[in-house]
């Protein structure tokens, strides 16, 4: 976990650390993995003192197992399902995006990923009155568009402004900026902007949107492949830990790749495919493009709650619909009917 340092736990003074180092025990992992009797001899320390130090270090650094029953209780009291604001998408996602997990939107250019992200941000901040963190990696975030969407929910300028203030925007155009941003949010250090601090100040964050993950990872894959894979795994770990630890719904976007047979798959490869718990593929409708330019087809391609491969047709315009067309017809059909 970390290098052994003096003062990490009672009994571990400078001299002790040096003697341990001489015995090739530098880190916490080294110490807990060592045979205590051996080590006591090697660094001429008392066996009892070593055992005590080991016990404290284990308690400090191990993950503490929680009973399943407690976890369930905690989940029942804290899990929230955030409506996306779009009834068709909600139906597909089993009523919305869930806190504590990662939901992914995958799609080609102009398939509506950013529109869905903006729609969710506007809905969560205005309708659900929760704070949102929006990490923009492509410059696709348009506050003007958010305002348009908010206008359909409230006519009050003040409320629109308040809703906009509940959305915190981070812009990160390369992988290091994204990681800086995620670690800063998830960290508990003294730095500003951490989620732990934010939640202790009353206003809790319920949604974290990253649009898009692939934009900053894709430039690394290829020649700096291993570094790219590593960075990808770090983004995954931080997102998962944040979603769980702070009980946040993480919504991320991904681009798609096309296989030789023309089959569309979400990008970032197999190692990323385990990361989101729910994946939705957004596609433009092949026909009727001119007639209904804002309608998209959404397919559920990974879910632990609903059968995979069910489809819905959704209208991106829904989030900024005017009062007149609220009655607009909706459709939710199964893939093959």
């Amino acid at each position, binding site marked *: 976990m970390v290098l052994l340092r003096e003062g990490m736990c009672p009994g571990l003074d400078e001299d002790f650390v040096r003697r341990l180092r001489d015995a090739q025990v530098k880190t916490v992992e080294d110490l807990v993995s060592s045979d205590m009797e051996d080590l006591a001899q090697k660094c001429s320390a008392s066996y009892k003192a070593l055992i005590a130090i080991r016990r404290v270090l284990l308690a400090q650094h191990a993950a503490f197992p929680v009973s399943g029953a407690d976890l369930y209780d905690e989940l029942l009291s804290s899990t929230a399902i955030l409506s996306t604001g779009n009834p068709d998408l909600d139906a597909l996602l089993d009523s919305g995006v869930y806190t504590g997990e990662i939901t992914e939107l995958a799609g080609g250019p102009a398939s509506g990923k950013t529109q869905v992200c903006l729609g969710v941000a506007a809905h969560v901040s205005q309708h659900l009155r929760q704070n949102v963190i929006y990490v923009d990696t492509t410059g696709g*975030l348009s506050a003007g568009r958010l305002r348009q969407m908010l206008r359909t929910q409230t006519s009050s300028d003040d409320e629109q402004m308040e809703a*906009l203030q509940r959305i*915190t*925007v981070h*812009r990160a155009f390369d992988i290091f900026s994204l990681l800086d*941003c995620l670690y800063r949010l998830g960290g508990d250090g003294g730095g500003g902007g951490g989620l732990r601090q934010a939640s202790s100040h009353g206003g809790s964050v319920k949604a974290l949107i990253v649009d*898009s993950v692939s934009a900053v990872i894709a430039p690394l894959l290829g020649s700096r492949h291993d570094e790219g894979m590593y960075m990808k795994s770090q983004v995954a770990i931080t997102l998962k830990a944040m979603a769980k630890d702070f009980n946040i719904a993480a919504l991320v976007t991904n*681009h*798609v790749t096309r296989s030789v047979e023309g089959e569309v798959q979400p990008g970032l490869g197999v190692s990323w495919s385990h990361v989101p718990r729910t994946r939705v593929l957004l596609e433009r409708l092949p026909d009727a493009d001119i007639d209904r330019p804002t309608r998209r087809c959404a397919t559920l391609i990974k879910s632990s709650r609903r059968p995979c491969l069910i489809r819905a047709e959704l209208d991106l315009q829904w989030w900024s619909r005017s009062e007149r067309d609220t009655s607009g017809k909706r459709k939710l059909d199964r893939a093959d009917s």
Partner: protein
Amino acid sequence: MQRPVTTLRLSPQIKVKVLNAGFQTLDDVMQVSALELSREAGLSQEEALEVLQVARKEGGADGGGAGDGASLTALDLLQKEEALTRIVTFSSRLDAALGGGLPVGKITEICGVPGMGKTQLCLQLAVDVQVPPCFGGLGGQVVFIDTEGSFVVQRAVDLATAAVRHCTLLAEEAEQRDAAAAFTVETILSNIFMVRCHDYVELLAEIYLLPDFLSSHPKVRLVVIDSVAFPFRQHFDELRAQRTRLLNGLAQQLISMATKHDVAVVLSNQMTTRLQGGQSQLVPALGESWGHAPTLRLLLRWAGSQRQATIFKSPDCEEATVNYQITTDGFRDDDRSEQPPSKRPRTLAGQSAAC
């Protein structure tokens, strides 16, 4: 969450040395002095200092939040967006559909087959961005990166002349008359910084250096690359994956630059045919993943004998199609033919209220 040192913005060589010395997390590094670090990890003093600087910045010792990652609220962003004047195209219908013109701080791509007027529109924008603020322009300068050798000075002169004439006719108040007097063809041409790039290496190098140029020329509001496709459609027959990676990196550099320096980035792109389901289809070149790069995509195409511009991708405008023509004066509305019946009303109704 413990942050591994490997996720810091440091060179791989330095990271390996730090790792091999047993430092794994940010906390590990923060505990030692530069002297100790340089001794234990075999780094030079400067390198050790750099590591500590990066670590301290991210470790939050000084409050963090500096640099790119600085956060703002959507309200701040809205105010920023509203403060940035858009670049008009001189086609009032296209401007209306775009919500007042091309956005500054974003990447716009103009796609079309040869002869559609991509370069014309690029030139038009290069002139328009210079329109003085009292006429609703930006009074900005331009970096024009020409990769195809298609920049023709005479055309720039034509368009500039038309723009100057337009402003002179509009001038009413004293301020506008003064501005119009200073807005001449010569000043317009002198405010366009021309760069000629012959291949993708030169282009990538230029983009790499551009942020410094923009810092020393804060009046630049527009960067044009005409075209981004040409250098990347040669030399890459066997190396599609490498091309995709280079392009992905380029896209992130461009949007970063556009955001930091408040410039509009305008790219032109060629069209290519894609076979899908036995049908061939004309799509923008450079592959599908490049399609994520532009924030806004304009498709220029023929509809019979009519030139049409379609907003194909945009975060804040609806998809819309307008007619245009290329005249001796430049890129203009086309009123010759009848209005297409179905699309026009929706386009305007949807946008005019919002923007």
